[in-house]
């Protein structure tokens, strides 16, 4: 007996076709109750449908908008069943995101049924100082990357005597490859807003903003719906006043994740950072004391108040309490959103949860473009703020990308620097010109024109940019280069000394070759070559070849491969 049908309708689900699936189910079985829910963290299996029955829930993965498929699914046939990698359970802890994917994100009722807003109610019975104290006891640290103790930040704002104080939720999740905050806002918007309201009570703030990436339309929509529900239910009545909560959309600038740039953008200006001090808690939005926390940080707060700071602090490690959300991506079997208690090792996350083939990963890139690469030999490092800092990486906001042995670390570094150089605001010299010069140098290396001096220049200029830049963007931009230089210097030297890319990734250092012994002369490659450089007797003219890989992709017998330029040394991935 089917009670109701839940469809994962966060961005990942929608992108995989959840809308079409929903429409089809409604068409095939109009009598069933369909509920749109958020993300359960298994993006690789989307679209995912959960069918609630009296005996419990049954999950289906890769659901197709096809009548036959839907009918079989509604008959609860044993096919396309979704069972998460059982290994995962060992490491994962659904704590902050417990409700994600289980409730309708924009149903206040469902959230309250599951304990929602109990944290706020409890907080309102406490004195503001007690709430701040509770957050301090929990030792929650900023989940945006820096790891500054949240309770301390709250106490700074609470101490301000100004009448107008502002709380800003930083939802400008700009790291390429990171989607933790998006998932939270799409799936459990009420939980984040509850955290903000508790913050308002604790600090005396009377104006709340959420600065959200414009690229997250569903998150914006769900937040706005949740805010109107809050207003209707009077939950925003704090300290005798109805607090105004506004979602402001960013307009595409990574640097606006930096807090002073964010404030400028919120004020409608160019998002250039300014010098600190004064810190935002002294002088922020329109000169008012302002406190900025990240989405995940606020989402933790209701749990802290509900459980008590001491109880909360039992999760995780001593100096890094609680859990951390990661957006797992890269060369993994199971990509998606995971939540792990602090202290779990890097290896457990990528092998245990991500399901990567044992030994296939040579490094992880953590913390996005501001973070660094951590090599295999450190995979037993526990994930906590301080251990990662020691390795030259940062916790960052939660992007975690597994890099397999078949990928080039120089190219990886170049990619990240290309990102930061494009996103530099252009205000200070080190970041504007320095990152550009580092990028050009890396391009010389990947382009086969680099020299040993170029590699030295990178290790020399990087620290100067870190020390001399105005804001966090420039101060961290060289990290991906410096960490790959530290742990994978050999790859750099291979590029400049031997003109060789060991991973065969850098186009300028490889050629494409057809193995005529394997080739069956089907002609697919010739047909698909966009630049017509494959001759009738199946030889590729590498002068004209753009290394687009089209031929490799279409070859039915895998006769075509990338090889080292000028030599027939084929390097196995």
């Amino acid at each position, binding site marked *: 007996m089917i009670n109701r049908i839940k469809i994962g309708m966060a961005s990942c689900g929608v992108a*995989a076709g959840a809308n079409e699936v929903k429409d089809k189910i409604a068409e095939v079985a109009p009598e069933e109750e369909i509920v749109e829910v958020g993300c359960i963290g298994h993006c690789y299996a989307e679209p995912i449908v959960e069918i609630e029955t009296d005996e419990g829930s049954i999950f289906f993965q890769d659901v197709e908008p096809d009548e036959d498929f839907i009918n079989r699914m509604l008959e609860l046939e044993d096919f396309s069943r979704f069972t998460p990698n059982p290994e995962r359970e060992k490491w994962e802890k659904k704590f902050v995101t417990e409700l994600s994917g289980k409730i309708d994100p924009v149903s206040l009722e469902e959230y309250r049924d599951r304990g929602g807003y109990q944290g706020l109610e409890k907080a309102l019975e406490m004195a503001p100082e007690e709430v701040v104290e509770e957050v301090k006891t929990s030792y929650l640290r900023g989940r945006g990357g820096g790891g500054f103790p949240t309770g301390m930040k709250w106490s700074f704002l609470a101490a301000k005597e100004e009448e107008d104080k502002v709380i800003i939720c930083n939802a400008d999740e700009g790291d390429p490859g990171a989607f933790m905050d*998006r998932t939270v806002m799409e799936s459990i918007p009420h939980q984040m807003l509850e955290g903000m309201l508790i913050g308002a009570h604790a600090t005396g703030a009377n104006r709340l903003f959420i600065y959200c990436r414009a690229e997250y339309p569903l998150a914006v929509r769900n937040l706005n719906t949740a805010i109107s529900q809050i207003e209707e239910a009077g939950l925003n009545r704090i300290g005798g006043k109805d607090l105004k909560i506004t979602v402001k959309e960013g*307009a595409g*600038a990574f640097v606006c994740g930096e807090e002073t740039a964010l404030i400028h953008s919120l004020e409608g200006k160019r998002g250039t950072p300014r010098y600190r001090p004064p810190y935002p808690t002294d002088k922020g939005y329109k000169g008012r004391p302002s406190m900025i926390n990240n989405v995940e940080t606020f989402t933790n707060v209701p749990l802290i108040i509900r459980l008590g700071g001491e109880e909360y602090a039992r999760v995780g490690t001593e100096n890094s309490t609680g859990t951390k959300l990661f957006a797992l991506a890269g060369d993994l079997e199971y990509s998606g959103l995971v939540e792990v208690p602090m202290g779990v090792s890097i290896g457990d996350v990528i092998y245990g949860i991500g399901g990567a083939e044992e030994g296939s990963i040579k490094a992880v890139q953590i913390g996005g473009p501001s973070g660094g690469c951590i090599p295999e030999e450190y995979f037993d490092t526990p994930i906590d703020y301080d251990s990662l800092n020691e390795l030259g990486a940062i916790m960052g906001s939660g992007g975690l990308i597994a890099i397999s042995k078949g990928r080039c670390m120089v190219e990886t570094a170049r990619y990240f620097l290309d990102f930061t150089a494009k996103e530099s605001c252009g205000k200070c010299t080190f970041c504007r010109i320095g990152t550009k010069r580092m990028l050009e140098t890396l391009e010389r290396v990947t382009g086969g024109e680099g020299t040993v001096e170029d590699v030295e220049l990178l290790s020399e200029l990087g620290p100067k940019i870190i020390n001399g830049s105005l804001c966090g963007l420039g101060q961290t931009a060289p990290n991906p280069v410096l960490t790959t230089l530290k742990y994978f210097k050999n790859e750099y030297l291979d590029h400049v000394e031997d003109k060789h890319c060991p991973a065969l990734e850098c186009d300028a250092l490889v050629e494409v070759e057809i193995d005529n012994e394997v080739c069956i002369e089907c002609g697919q490659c010739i047909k698909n070559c966009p630049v017509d450089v494959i001759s009738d007797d199946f030889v590729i003219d590498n002068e004209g070849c753009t290394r687009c890989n089209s031929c490799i992709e279409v070859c039915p017998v895998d006769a075509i491969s990338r090889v080292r330029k000028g030599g027939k040394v084929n390097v196995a991935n």
Partner: protein
Amino acid sequence: MPDLATLGQEKSNLIKALQEQQREEGYISDQAIKNISREFDMAPVEVEGVVSFYTQFKRIKPGKYKIQVCDGTACHIKGSKLVLNWAQDHLGIAEGETDEEGLFSLDAVACLGCCSLAPVISINGKVYGDLTRKKLLKILKDYRAREEDE
């Protein structure tokens, strides 16, 4: 048209006004900059400074179909550079350009947030994932065919 007179009473609404303007017209024209600077009581160059700072805003009229090639980390690793090349070759335009008929415009963008489907593109907001060259060209040809039918 966005209600500039109301928005303009509060300077912090500038980005919002520009977003509404762009939603309406697809880009920010010279005239739009003049109108907005008048309603916001700001110099046109200040508005220009804001428009040019944020990648979301376009000063050139885009094509009917706006193709965004995701160059987020996951997509990059899975060959977004190639996807962009394929699209450029097929359409005969470079990144940031619009074709002569005004049908397609092409942009590389930071993460679209569908990393598990990498590499992905979006066309007018609709996401297409797990792309290969064949798949991409078919998608583009389908759009063109649909256009010719109309």
